[in-house]
């Protein structure tokens, strides 16, 4: 019974798990680059959710075919394209911050930075 639910909705369970992993990376890790990787994983989990939601079982990719077919919903894909670009730009901004922090403090360890900025 429980297994049935798990197997029917495994996409969703995995996206939640992925989210928690990302969240752990963001909050639990002291290294700033690790935090950013965690952040990206966190964002990917949401993209995964969107694409899973768009998927129709037995559907085909939203490319126009000669014969009628069940297409998956293309709109979330478009949204995710935008979101991926946003995610990458966030990552870029974050990394440039990280580089400047390193130049300023000489370390990427959060605790040490807090100590140094006292």
């Amino acid at each position, binding site marked *: 019974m429980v297994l049935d639910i798990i197997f029917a909705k495994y996409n969703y369970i995995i996206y939640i798990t992925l989210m928690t992993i990302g969240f*752990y990376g963001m909050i639990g890790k002291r290294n700033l*680059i*690790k935090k950013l990787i965690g952040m990206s994983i966190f964002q990917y989990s949401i993209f995964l959710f969107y694409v*899973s939601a*768009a998927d129709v079982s037995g559907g085909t990719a939203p490319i126009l075919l000669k014969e009628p077919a069940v297409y*998956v919903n293309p709109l979330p894909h478009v949204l995710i394209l935008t979101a*991926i670009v946003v995610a990458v730009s966030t*990552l870029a901004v974050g*990394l440039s911050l990280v580089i400047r922090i390193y130049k300023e403090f000489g*370390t990427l360890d959060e605790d040490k930075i807090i100590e140094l900025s006292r």
Partner: protein
Amino acid sequence: MIFSVDLVLLLLILVLAVASIMVKDLLESTVLFACFSFLMAVIWVEMNSVDVAFTEAAVGAGVSTILLVAAIACTRRYEEER
């Protein structure tokens, strides 16, 4: 009960995500993250969103990795021990 391909892929993704966060070597972690992105792209192909998969492979796996590697090159490679 049929184990579909994407379940396997998804589990693999979970493993990669955990690994890329846990590894001490940042470069290693970056590579694992690139794998993660790439597998994500594969999953999206499997889920019929080809366009997203393209973007993901290019931007996510490609550009992000380059950015990360560049950042690591500018800073330091290993996480500091306490």
